[in-house]
């Protein structure tokens, strides 16, 4: 039986300051996060006890100075009342959504993250010289070969052998770019020329099939093994090959289709052999660099297929699986699988017949349409800096300047969540995961909390003893399970006692 899914995203934002004052990106990132948090949230530290980014899913541990990494990461860190983590990762502000149980909720809190970054800009400007401007981009590269990540996280059954998981996912990740790509002008691969526009931001940076690295020799399937949950039962699949996406439909499809494919893998309902690619890394780039969608990639069994061909086969397998009813218990009556399949089918149909009909749904199509129209009107070559700027500014999180947000304002983009929901999501957590308990404790008892993390809260109840409340099951700590308890105790000591009783 497949496992009920948990979805989450982590986004590293690109930042820069223009105007007076010489401010390094590291300082801007710290100012953004630091200024956003109220004082009582700022003093709650991140609990690193269960963190180990160097543990490999294949069963070994890489060597690196873990303490140094912890120290770096601990500098500016916030756990928010919506259950999210907002912190500085090297030179980037990073927002990790709270745990959600379906792709639409994940889109909602992913968008709340953008809104939080935008709110942070306004607060950080108060401490910069007048005239300074902060720019924050939700994209994945600076156009000069430096990439920063947008990672997806999915809860997966630990019983699935990792090798099978990786082998099944690679062809899916290679081909999902046809709808999940954010679009990019040019290429950043050294020595390569003649690429005007490609589907994805990250394809240029994929160098291996499977690996632990996230900053060098980036792999299509990342092996970081930090479940942030009971390690006997769960694995957290950490996906690093995807793009930061602005369109709600694009993000919804990226998350939803991947979640469904994972459930088929868990239930052994996917015939791996019929999808295995001959040269996955090469194919990843071939697919990205062919906006006509006509290029074929070679399969291990000798067939050649387009990325869309393969996606139709994945869709067929998922539809057959949904009909079988085998996943019903794990879906728990939720309609998200059907919603994803309907959108997936509609989008693949559009890609087959006329991709331009998808400009309100897919980022790469929306961006391409803007670039083409702008290029034509001004008679520009593809290497013109203005087109690179349009590519970058499409991802600006400030609705006054961001080109994606101009499309939203012009009602050119399909929405899945409302602005009111996004605003609420900045403050309140999802109600059906442990994020509810985490966020609620931050809202109620921040002054008694010493540290928090994905799977624990540490309370200081009397100034002498620390009490650690573990939350190893991401499905426990929901509103249904803990609201009454939280409302009973105005003081955290009573709550902790009740939990331990």
């Amino acid at each position, binding site marked *: 039986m497949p496992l009920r899914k948990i979805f989450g995203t982590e986004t590293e934002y*690109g930042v820069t300051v223009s105007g007076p004052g010489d401010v390094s*990106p590291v300082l801007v990132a710290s100012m953004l996060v630091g200024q956003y948090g109220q004082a009582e949230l700022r003093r709650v530290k991140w609990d690193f006890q269960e963190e180990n980014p160097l543990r490999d899913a294949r069963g070994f541990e890489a060597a690196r100075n873990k303490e140094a990494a912890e120290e770096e990461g601990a500098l500016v860190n916030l756990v928010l009342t919506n259950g999210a983590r907002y912190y500085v990762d090297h030179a980037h502000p990073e927002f990790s959504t709270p745990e959600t149980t379906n792709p639409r909720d994940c889109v909602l809190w992913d968008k709340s993250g953008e809104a939080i970054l935008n709110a942070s800009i306004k607060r950080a400007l108060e401490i910069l010289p007048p005239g300074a401007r902060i720019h924050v981009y939700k994209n994945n590269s600076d156009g000069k070969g430096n990439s920063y990540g947008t990672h997806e996280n999915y809860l997966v059954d630990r019983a699935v052998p990792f090798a099978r998981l990786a082998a099944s996912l690679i062809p899916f990740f290679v081909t999902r770019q046809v709808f999940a790509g954010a679009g990019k002008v040019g290429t950043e691969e050294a020595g390569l020329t003649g690429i005007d526009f490609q589907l994805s931001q990250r394809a240029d940076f994929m160098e291996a099939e499977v690996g632990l690295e996230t900053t060098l020799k980036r792999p299509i399937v990342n092996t970081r093994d930090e479940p942030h949950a009971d390690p006997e039962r769960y694995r957290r699949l950490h996906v690093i090959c995807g793009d930061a996406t602005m369109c709600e439909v694009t993000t919804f499809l990226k998350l939803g289709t991947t979640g469904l494919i994972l459930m088929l893998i868990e239930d052994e309902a996917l015939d791996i052999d019929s999808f295995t690619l001959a040269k996955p890394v090469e194919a990843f780039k071939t697919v990205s660099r062919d906006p006509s969608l006509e290029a074929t990639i070679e399969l291990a069994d000798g067939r050649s297929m387009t990325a869309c061909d393969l996606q139709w086969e994945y869709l067929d397998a998922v539809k057959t699986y949904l009909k079988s009813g085998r996943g019903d218990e794990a879906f728990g009556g939720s309609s998200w699988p059907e919603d994803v399949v309907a959108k997936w089918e509609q989008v693949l149909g559009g890609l087959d017949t*006329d991709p331009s009909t998808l400009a309100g749904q897919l980022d790469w199509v929306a961006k391409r349409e803007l670039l083409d129209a702008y290029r034509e009107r001004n008679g520009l070559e593809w290497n013109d800096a203005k087109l690179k700027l349009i590519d970058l500014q499409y991802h600006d999180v400030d609705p006054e300047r961001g080109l994606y947000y*101009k499309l939203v304002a012009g009602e050119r983009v399909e929405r899945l969540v409302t602005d009111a929901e996004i605003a609420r999501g900045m403050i309140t957590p999802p109600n059906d995961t442990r994020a509810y308990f985490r966020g609620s404790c931050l809202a109620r008892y921040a002054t008694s909390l010493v540290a928090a993390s994905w799977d624990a809260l540490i309370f200081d109840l009397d100034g002498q003893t620390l009490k650690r409340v573990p939350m190893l099951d991401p499905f426990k700590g929901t509103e249904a399970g803990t609201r009454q308890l939280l409302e009973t105790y105005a003081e955290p000591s009573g709550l902790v006692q009740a939990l331990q009783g």
Partner: protein
Amino acid sequence: MPQSERQQKKKKEAPPPSEEGGAANPEAQQKGRRLKEDMDRLLDEIDSVLEENAEEFIKNYVQKGGE
């Protein structure tokens, strides 16, 4: 759907349906004009918000570290 069936469907659907007479149809022409006007307005707006001096701005946008 099976690949063969899909290929047929693809052929059938592209080019887009032209039952209304395609480009010669006055209604379609009007719609095309409206779309172009909308896009022109959008491009004007983009011009008004694009960072000044694209070359310089792009050159100065450098991001290091992360993940």
